[in-house]
């Protein structure tokens, strides 16, 4: 939990990969299409590509098989091979919301075995509080978040 914002909600996850940081960074950013959970799409068609423009201020978006592009957010920091910060502006029910800014910080740290520890922090999730109504609709829809949350609650209790 970051000390700077006291009611901040953060999710932290880390994973080790058997690639040096520069390769891990490239794989993460250039080939997101191949590892992104495909059901998490906000487009009108299935995901054909997930694109991240490789510079600060760059767009982060999905391109559907129908050719339409849907923005997800922006690149806030582009500092290979160590650091990447994305602004995640996907709101409730997987729609783009320019007024919502949550941050995904990813750091790529070399380990002693020649691999990389990838640490991810999704910060400021409390900002979803501003769209509680839309979230409720998302939760209540068939295939919405309720099933996921129920599953999580079962694990957590």
């Amino acid at each position, binding site marked *: 939990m970051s000390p700077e914002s006291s*009611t901040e909600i953060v999710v932290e996850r880390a994973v080790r*990969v058997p690639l040096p940081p520069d390769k891990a960074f490239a794989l993460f950013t250039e080939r997101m299409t*191949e590892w992104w959970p495909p059901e*998490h799409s906000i487009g009108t068609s299935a995901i054909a590509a997930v694109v991240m423009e490789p510079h600060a201020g760059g767009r982060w978006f999905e391109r559907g098989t129908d050719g339409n592009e849907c923005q997800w957010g922006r690149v806030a920091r582009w500092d290979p091979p160590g650091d990447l910060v994305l602004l995640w502006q996907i709101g409730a029910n997987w729609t783009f919301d320019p007024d919502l800014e949550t941050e995904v910080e990813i750091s790529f740290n070399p380990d002693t075995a020649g691999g990389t520890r*990838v640490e991810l922090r999704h910060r400021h999730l409390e900002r*979803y509080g501003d*769209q509680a109504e839309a979230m409720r609709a998302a939760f209540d829809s068939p295939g919405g978040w309720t099933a*996921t*949350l129920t599953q*999580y609650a079962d694990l957590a209790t």
Partner: protein
Amino acid sequence: MPASAATVLDALGDARRRNILDCLLDGPLAVGVLAERLPISRPAVSQHLRVLKEAELVIEAVAGTRHLYRINPAGFEAVRGYFEQFWTSALDNFAALARAEAATRTSPDGVSGSEREEQRDEP
């Protein structure tokens, strides 16, 4: 069992309630103290605390004749849980792809035909 994510997000959707949570981060407080620190009336503080309590974001504890309110960190679990599950799944995929990539790298300097060899799933 955590409160539903929607209830939690409703509760967090109000700036005054977030202010109250900020105050409580330093430790448990009584309604009267909160009302002194914030530009809202005591009944308004009580009302906000009720919403926060229903969302399980704060817990009320009775200390003698005083009712103290404190943060309940577990109350944030519903929101956090969704994203924890999402990122666990996403990073698992990423690690699997990285392992496949590492397996195709044949030379120690990393120069290999892996980019070509890797099967892409693009339509």
